[in-house]
């Protein structure tokens, strides 16, 4: 008795999920082999036709130009402005961070002493004063630079 592959066995074979049983049957059954060839051939035809068709359809569609996504309101411009501000902020803040990094080397020693000396207090006051001065000064420069950069960005966008 020549029992052909069930639908499930056939699909498993087509999907590469067969445990070997269906493949063995295929070797000895002309009908099932023929059916497998027909279905694979049809899938191949469909694949080729659909690929050619979709490529042709897409080629006929308007191609999104560079910057297409920006025009949809997904622009990076605000992010770029914020980034510039952040860069400037880093540029302003880093020297203070560096100075802070320098200070702890002294401070580490100072903290060893339970009561700060007059000399340490004077050094701290001097440092705070320098920080205040530098914070006040670059803020104006920072704003001017940012305004100038934003102006440039708008011009570039146009």
């Amino acid at each position: 008795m020549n029992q052909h592959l069930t639908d499930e066995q056939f699909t498993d074979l087509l999907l590469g999920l067969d445990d070997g049983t269906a493949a063995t049957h295929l070797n000895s059954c002309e009908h099932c082999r023929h059916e497998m060839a027909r279905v694979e051939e049809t899938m191949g035809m469909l694949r080729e036709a659909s690929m050619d068709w979709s490529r042709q359809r897409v080629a006929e569609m308007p191609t999104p130009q560079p910057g297409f996504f920006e025009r949809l309101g997904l622009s990076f411009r605000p992010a770029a402005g914020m980034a510039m501000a952040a860069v400037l902020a880093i540029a302003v803040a880093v020297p203070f961070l560096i100075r802070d990094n320098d200070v702890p080397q002294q401070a580490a020693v100072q903290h060893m002493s339970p009561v700060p000396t007059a000399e340490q207090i004077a050094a701290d006051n001097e440092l705070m004063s320098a920080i205040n001065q530098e914070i006040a000064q670059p803020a104006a420069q920072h704003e001017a630079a940012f305004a100038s950069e934003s102006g440039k960005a708008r011009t570039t966008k146009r």
Partner: protein
Amino acid sequence: MPATASTAILSFAARQEARTHELEDIDGLVRLYRAKVYRYVAYSINDADLAESITQDCFVKAYANRASFRGDCSVSTWLMSIATNLVRDHVRTQKFKFWRNFRATAADVTDMSHQISSRASSPESALIARERVQGVHAALATLSERQRSVFVMRFLEEMDLAEIAKATGMPVNTVKTHLHRAVTAIRAQLGPNASTLGGTR
């Protein structure tokens, strides 16, 4: 110490530059995957014109959510999952219009027939191929959107079951069940096993 400041600024600038490259990449991504996504969407919703708009939405969504892509699957699978969600949204809201639209896409099948003619070695084989492809389209029309989507991913896009499961959010066994249903419907539509063009591809 100024080197630390320079490093911080340069590192920040590098991140910004990487983002700029992402912006350029999305254009490349569209060029690379547009036909694939379009094909998948067109088959899934049976509406070639609407597929155009959904495909564009897919890339817009991908671009807007690019930060959420963690690289745990291929870009292609990621795009297919976005397209799948858009198709589902569409099917949910346009369920009735969807079936009406199917007839209108018959013109697309005719388009495809021209492609077959250009590849076929003889008018006779072109005719057989056209009939087969039209038969598959007719069978696909009887399937649910999910069955059709899974079928397209497997047999047109040649994705493996794990990739399909990832893109659709379905368990692998559900994917297999949909594929069984699709293959059975297509074989039934092709009719009795009487002829082939000869040999496997």
